[in-house]
């Protein structure tokens, strides 16, 4: 029996730049940061939620040959790879905070739906980030 999701990975173009964005702009905290040889295992996570880590993976050796890495980098920057969805307790306040921290790449300002208020942005590389403030579920709605 599986018990929980532990690590999800996303591709970024640069681990240092990703760490700066995800921690200093988006408000996550650094999880693991170990270096072994040339490889750096770097994760971030939602503060107070240490069980789920987001692995920031950079295409290239030793994971990929250079041609493969180049293909992945092109896909990242086209926004064609997977993204992340977070919950927040206050989407509009977070929107303000992110703007104050210099985030400009919003794909959607906060909009209210029957399931809650959501917003969208991109990380510096093109990955989609969605943030949802869920409305308390009254009936049998799927959010």
């Amino acid at each position, binding site marked *: 029996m599986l018990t929980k999701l532990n690590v999800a990975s996303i591709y970024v173009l640069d681990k240092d730049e990703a760490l700066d964005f995800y921690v200093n702009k988006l408000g996550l905290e650094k999880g693991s940061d170990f270096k072994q040889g040339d490889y750096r295992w770097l994760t971030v996570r939602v503060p107070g939620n240490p069980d789920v880590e987001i692995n920031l993976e950079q295409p290239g050796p030793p994971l990929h040959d250079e041609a493969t890495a180049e293909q992945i980098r*092109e896909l990242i920057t086209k926004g064609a790879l997977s993204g992340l969805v977070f919950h927040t307790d206050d989407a509009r306040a977070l929107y303000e905070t992110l703007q104050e921290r210099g985030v400009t790449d919003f794909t959607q300002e906060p909009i209210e739906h029957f399931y809650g208020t959501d917003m969208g942005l991109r990380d510096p590389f093109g990955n989609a980030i969605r943030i949802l403030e869920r409305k308390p579920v009254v009936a049998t709605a799927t*959010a």
Partner: protein
Amino acid sequence: MSRDVEDLNRRLLRARDAMDRAYAEPLDVAAVAAVAHISEAHFSRSFRAAFGETPHRYLQRRRVERSMFLLRETERSITDICFDVGFMSLGTFSRTFREIIGETPTTYRDGHGPMVAPNCVQMWAMRPRVGVGELAPAEGGTKSSSFGEAAAASAP
């Protein structure tokens, strides 16, 4: 070399995001190209190379997708929806909708109820890709441009 491609892609994506965000507003190629900091001619060519369709076609189908959403989810009139999504005339909207979807907005509404998925998933997944009767992705730009459709409309 590859860094240049990545930088160009990122800017093209930013322009595509602008169309997803501001489809209801007056948009022309120049305005969208400006988001990417690229000249108009180079922008349309590069956009097509990156995403497989012209910016005109991308925007047209975003507007049609949003109209489909409003037809499914709301009781708003066809005319209101036409202007809501950035078309400037009911005639252009109805013709474009029929060309792409193969039926009129009214018959589409009659046949489709609300979709149980978050709005972002609907935007992501429901934008029509290939229109009815199209054998291959159209050249785009050969038909009347939906850029500027909303030129005289006030933003919602």
